């Protein structure tokens, strides 16, 4: 209570905030009936002519003899299309009986009368045509945002299978998905999720598969956002996830349209946004972070071999360095005598305890990794030289670390790359340090205690109502795609934890 009253007294009054009620009122109202007034209103809204890329072009429509003005932002609009399909038909019209809609030959025309709606459309790259004597504006679809072409997926590489990746343009991404799911049941819903920048969010799902409750849950969460701007999906992910401080990710982030499409076909919901070369898939389970799309493209034995490698790599990453510390510090009797003598001999001249030694090397490895990521590519090779020579060889020769620690850390570091998903990769790397810490305090007892707590934590996580480890536990009807996958012909069920409307794949 004291806290609350203190907070009350400390509440600052935000003084220099101007009232925007006038603007809001203007945006809610219809466009003025007077043509000149309309143009002036929009001129003031768009700060014309200070605003360099706003184009206002008066046109006298011949034939029907009406004054009109076209307004668009030329940096995000296809000026060529406007010129060919709007301006020249209007100027060259001879027929006095034609209506404006029929003169213009551009493919999409909408009419809107609210100022706010018109502004939104113009900001999205459409052109607005105001015609004298009409109480609405024509909105002409000609948006043309700059974007790169469809390229190879950067982070989720496959050897066998499609190589296309999403790019920063949502319409392209939707088209990439539609290319794979050619169904009228695929719904692309659009929501405006931010108040100031009006960022568009696209919700993709198959309407005859997705569970209504899940869909409603996602929509509620997306619509309840109250923020000025959310630029892209990476930011949105942090707004809609449930546990913000958890080290486990609960929303899957993929840049592969084939992966997104296969999730949609299973009854998941996919989110797309402009400026995001990726898609968010929800809900996500632990397994979706552990899988990659390639395991299904490879034949059954090869795919499962990869899975086996990955699960081993996962455990190697998590446990090698901590087990080494635990064994050397607390359970040295476990090591066969010859090996123990070998380890002891290399550690003879070292000044540090095993835990410190491993910490130094692990930290150095993380530094190399981070540096490799940030360094400009022309000087990239330097990192390799520094890493291999200084940290590998020189550190051993200088008796800072023992050779076996270099092996252990390198093995753990190498294995950590087997987990492709970037969020899960961080989870594993952070957990590795936590395990290392617990191993240095309590040996195997500490490792096991932390591991058990971790499992307890994992089973209590839910992603949009779906338990994190399902279908392993709690068990649900599904194709059993967990650590290993089945033969394709036997994967006939959609995941039951999503409560899809149609469980069976035909």
């Amino acid at each position, binding site marked *: 209570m004291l806290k609350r009253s203190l907070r009350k007294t400390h509440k600052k009054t935000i003084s220099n905030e101007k009232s925007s009620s006038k603007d809001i009122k203007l945006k809610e109202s219809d466009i003025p009936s007077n043509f000149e007034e309309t143009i002036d209103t929009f001129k003031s809204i768009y700060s014309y002519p200070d605003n360099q890329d706003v184009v206002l072009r008066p046109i006298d429509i011949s034939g029907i003899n009406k004054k009109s003005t076209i307004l668009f932002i030329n940096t995000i609009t296809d000026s060529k299309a406007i010129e060919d399909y709007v301006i020249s038909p209007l100027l060259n019209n001879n027929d006095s009986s034609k209506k404006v809609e029929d003169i213009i030959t551009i493919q999409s025309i909408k009419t809107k009368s609210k100022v706010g709606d018109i502004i939104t459309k113009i900001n999205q790259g459409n052109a607005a045509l105001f015609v004298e004597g009409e109480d609405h504006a024509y909105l002409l679809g000609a948006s043309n945002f700059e974007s790169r072409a469809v390229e190879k997926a950067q982070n989720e590489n496959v050897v066998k299978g499609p190589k296309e990746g999403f790019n920063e343009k949502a319409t392209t991404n939707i088209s990439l998905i539609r290319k794979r799911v050619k169904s009228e049941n695929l719904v692309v819903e659009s929501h405006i999720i931010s108040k100031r920048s009006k960022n568009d969010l696209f919700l993709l799902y198959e309407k005859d598969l997705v569970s209504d409750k899940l869909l409603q849950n996602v929509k509620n969460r997306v619509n309840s956002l109250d923020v000025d701007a959310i630029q892209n999906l990476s930011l949105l992910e942090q707004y809609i996830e449930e546990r913000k401080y958890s080290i486990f990710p609960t929303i899957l982030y993929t840049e592969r349209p084939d992966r997104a499409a296969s999730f949609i076909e299973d009854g998941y919901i996919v989110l797309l946004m402009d400026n995001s070369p990726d898609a968010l898939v929800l809900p996500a389970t632990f397994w979706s972070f552990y899988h990659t799309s390639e395991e299904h493209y490879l034949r059954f034995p090869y795919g499962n071999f990869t899975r086996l490698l990955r699960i081993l790599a996962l455990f190697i990453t998590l446990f090698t360095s901590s087990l080494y510390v635990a*064994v050397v510090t*607390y*359970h040295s*009797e*476990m090591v*066969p*005598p010859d090996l123990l003598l070998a380890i002891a001999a290399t550690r003879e001249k070292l000044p540090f305890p095993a835990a410190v030694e491993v910490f130094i090397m692990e930290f150095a490895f993380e530094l190399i990794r981070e540096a490799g990521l940030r360094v400009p590519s022309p000087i990239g090779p330097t990192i390799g030289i520094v890493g291999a020579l200084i940290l590998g060889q020189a550190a051993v020769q200088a008796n800072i670390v023992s050779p076996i620690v270099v092996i252990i850390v390198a093995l753990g570091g190498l294995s950590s790359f087997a987990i492709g998903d970037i969020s899960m990769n961080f989870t594993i790397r952070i957990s590795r340090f936590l395990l290392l810490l617990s191993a240095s305090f*309590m*040996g*195997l*007892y*500490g*490792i*096991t*205690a932390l*591991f*058990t*707590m971790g*499992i*307890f*934590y994992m*089973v*209590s996580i839910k992603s949009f109502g779906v*338990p994190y*480890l399902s279908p*392993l*536990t*709690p*068990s649900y009807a599904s194709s059993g795609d967990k650590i290993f996958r089945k033969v394709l012909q036997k994967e006939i069920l959609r995941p039951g934890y999503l409560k899809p409307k149609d469980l069976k794949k035909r």
Partner: protein
Amino acid sequence: MEQSKQLIGIKEYIAIVLLMVGTKVTDNTPTILFEYIKNAGWMAPIINGLIAIFPIYLLIKVFTIYKGKSLLEVSDHLFGKFFSFIILFIMLVVAFGAVIVDTAIYTDIIGTMYFTKTPTIIVYGILMLVCAYGATRGFEQIGSVAWTVFPYLQVSLFFALILTIGQGNTAFIFPILGDGAWEVVKESSLRLSLYADFLYLFLFYPYIKSEIVFKKGTWLALVFIIMNLSIVMVCYIFLFDYKTIMQLNYPYHELIRTISLGFIINMEAFFLPFWLIATFVRFSIYLYINAILFGHLFKIKHFEYLIPSLATLIVFLGMIPENPTFIIFDIKEKLLLMTSPLFFLLPLLMWLVAMFKGEFKNANKRNIR
């Protein structure tokens, strides 16, 4: 802590029961059995198991009338508020005593066998910290964890047993009946409380997906446990012979110290993590049981919040005995003896009362609150 109540399935349920009861074979329970029944000790789980069928059958019979009600509500209904309070209170005392004694034993195992230099309070503290954390997650989560780890624990146990059989002497099993058939039956039935945990399982009745799952799960779990316990105990005999086991306090830990695989001579550190996981899950369940009982008796609705304080209390009570290896061993023996009649008589009493009250006849019309 406001978890959505999701009911648990048969896999999770069986895993919970197996971890609750099956783990006993790795502490000093086998020693207690071997002490009185000599080398027929491995029969005790079987004989007790057969006897235990009776009370479990009666309980299931009673509980099928009250669909989805837990032991607490059924007891309240059958015995009335006052007597029910006494009975449940006795159950709480027994459960709390058992969890103190058992955690003290497990701490002692960790302290004497693996971490000889670490202060007891730290070992004990970490044990209860993990268990309390697990228990606060909720019953469904404990079940999930139990099922997630169970296959690996079972595999590690069987791996140890296979190595044991290879290194043991099968002739140690003779004479099969030890001191004689009557002695075996008498002494083992006095320690029926080996399976007393089954009584507490009926607290979880409303958490289980369906009646059939509960019935089937309980019986299957009983069979698995009997098999597990007796097979492991037979292996102890193969490796040590009964004279040694009577001396050994923690035969499982001596066993994993003794066996070797090729060039790896000391394997205990390989088995330790698996055993520890089982321990953590086991005491999470026990803590949860205590919290449920305590919460019901003293009308605390959000009993999950009790768990941390119960865990702290357990640490301090369990630390009291100065020489746990002997004192706790004694207490545990007494507890086993004292609990046996409770486990046998309470179900009988419940069944009789239900019978006299005529509950079985108008089962279909009944709908208690």
